């Protein structure tokens, strides 16, 4: 369940602990141990059921979500609409209370104010008081966070995000993309250790996206922990150290970005010259093909590593010369789509059975 975090037997026992025997003692031990374990966020079998009213059916938004985010890492939190991402954020902020499971933010229970003081949050649709200017929003954010006022720094922050003019302009006169950047600035203004960003690229033009990405890279370099939820998967791939894929309130896959993408070779192209015939494709994946010519090309679709080895050996045996081998990996979008399709298939199977 926690392959990367549960390194010691003690950690395993802490995370897989079930509330059966010595419950209070074990739970206290877990609470004490969480801050030392450098987790910024630790969610354990978190559940949330919305009960709109007595006349409407309850909706289960989270079904035992496990999630751990370590200090200093950038975590891409991905899922389809309605997967439970925003509910998770609301639980982290203490706006909602879980109906099952447990969660910690900086080693403290969810919603704890001391933990919230170390957090900056950008909601999916940032909304501010329309009569306040960008500068007044940042000043209010500082006051509410208990940070010292520093207008010069706040102005610089808006400048760096390309919206210096928003300092004195009421937020009701800002476009969606400009408001989004004011939102990022208010999340950063008190220099939090953790940034939770729900769709930070939403409504941004390409130039603004570049600025925001640069800013997020700088924050990562500065050691800040970032949890990023967005549907722009290329951005997640570029920015995240680790990625979690969530569907129907459960974490389907989680791991380092390069690990998630490494086992997913989409196509291998072998280019060469000299003698070659169709026999090289024997035992290769179905969609593979040989493109004759000089140089010729062999295209292997989603091959296993041993199939690539076998193909290369046959080419040499036939008297061909290999000029180059190029592998094309799946990008995050392809991994995401495949994972979600598999999850949907699994759900269908369960329903059928």
């Amino acid at each position, binding site marked *: 369940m926690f392959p990367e975090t549960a390194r010691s037997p003690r950690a395993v026992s802490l995370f897989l602990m079930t509330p059966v025997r010595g419950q209070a003692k074990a739970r206290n031990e877990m609470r004490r141990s969480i801050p030392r374990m450098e987790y910024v966020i630790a969610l354990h079998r978190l559940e949330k059921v919305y009960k709109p009213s007595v006349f409407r059916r309850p909706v289960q938004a989270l079904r035992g979500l496990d999630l751990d985010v370590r200090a200093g890492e950038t975590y891409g939190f991905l899922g389809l609409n309605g997967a439970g991402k925003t509910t998770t954020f609301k639980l982290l902020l203490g706006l*909602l209370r879980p109906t099952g499971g447990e969660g910690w933010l900086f080693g403290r229970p969810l919603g704890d*104010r*001391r933990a*919230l003081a170390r957090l*900056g949050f950008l909601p999916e649709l940032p909304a501010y*008081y329309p009569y*306040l200017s960008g500068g007044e929003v940042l000043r209010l954010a500082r*006051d509410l966070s*208990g940070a010292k006022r520093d207008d010069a720094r706040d102005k610089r922050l808006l400048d760096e995000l390309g919206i210096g003019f928003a300092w004195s302009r009421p937020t009701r006169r800002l476009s969606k993309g400009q408001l989004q950047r004011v939102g990022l600035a208010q999340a950063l203004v008190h220099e939090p250790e953790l940034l939770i960003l729900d769709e930070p690229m939403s409504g941004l033009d390409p130039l603004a996206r570049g600025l925001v990405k640069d800013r997020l890279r700088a924050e990562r370099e500065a050691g800040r922990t970032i949890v990023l939820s967005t549907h722009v998967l290329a951005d997640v791939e570029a920015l995240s150290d680790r990625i979690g894929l969530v569907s129907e309130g459960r974490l389907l896959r989680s791991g380092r970005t390069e690990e998630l993408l490494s086992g997913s070779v989409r196509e291998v192209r072998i280019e060469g010259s000299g003698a070659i015939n169709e026999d090289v494709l024997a035992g290769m994946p179905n969609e593979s093909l040989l493109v004759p010519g000089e140089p010729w090309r062999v295209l292997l679709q989603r091959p296993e590593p041993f199939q690539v080895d076998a193909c290369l050996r046959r080419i040499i045996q036939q008297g061909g010369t290999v000029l180059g081998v190029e592998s094309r990996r799946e990008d995050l979008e392809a991994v995401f789509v495949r994972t979600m399709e598999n999850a949907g298939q699994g759900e269908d199977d369960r329903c059928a059975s």
Partner: protein
Amino acid sequence: MRVVRAIAWNTAVEALRDKVLYLLLFFGLFLFGASRLLAPLALGEAKRITLDVGLSSISAFGCLIAIFVGHQLIFREVERKTLYFLFSRPIHRAQFVWGKFLGLYAILSLSVLLMGVMLALVLLAGGHGVDLSLAQALALILVEMGILSAIAILIASFTSPILAGLFTLAAYLIGHGSGDLTDLLARTSSPVGRGVVEGLRWILPRLDLYGELLPVLTGTGWTGPQLGLAFVYGSVYGAACLLLAGVILTRRELAL
């Protein structure tokens, strides 16, 4: 304290930008018109009529502002989704409630002060004197508005804005008739009935303490103990409402 001050400032700015003080312009025109129309009919009681109309209007206008701004203070934050901005920070919900109340109360105080100045000007223009009892009456109206604002925020913490507005209006009307409960208590003999009436006397706001105009009309003013009781009662009742609102809001899930 800084958090409460920041929320209060923001609430006051919002009320000002919502042009709440425009109501005062209507008040001024109404007061001027009423004093011009009614004074000739009063046969030597022009000051009394002007004071009566003026103070009743200040109370009514102030309470309207308290009810119509107070009942949607919380709902607007939810509707506009600005609660994300507030509650993603280390803010206790009770701080939010007190900040909202103090912001609203600052605007109410400003309104009462301005309306009081207008009334004094109308009195002076009519050749009547102004004494301390007018200031006492305005202070009591302010306490009454504090109670109403706290009730509006309390009811808004657990119900919809429309219901909160209606219930607060009902509390205003019932509160001014709460003196009748004392008479009812004297006439009730059954222990159960007495218990119910006694309970209602404790729960419902005693706004009749603040509606008495005779001391100002006669120019005698209120005694120290009368004023003290009114201030202490208003402060305790208002604080209890706000504490309860803080507890309710802390326990409430804010699904946006």
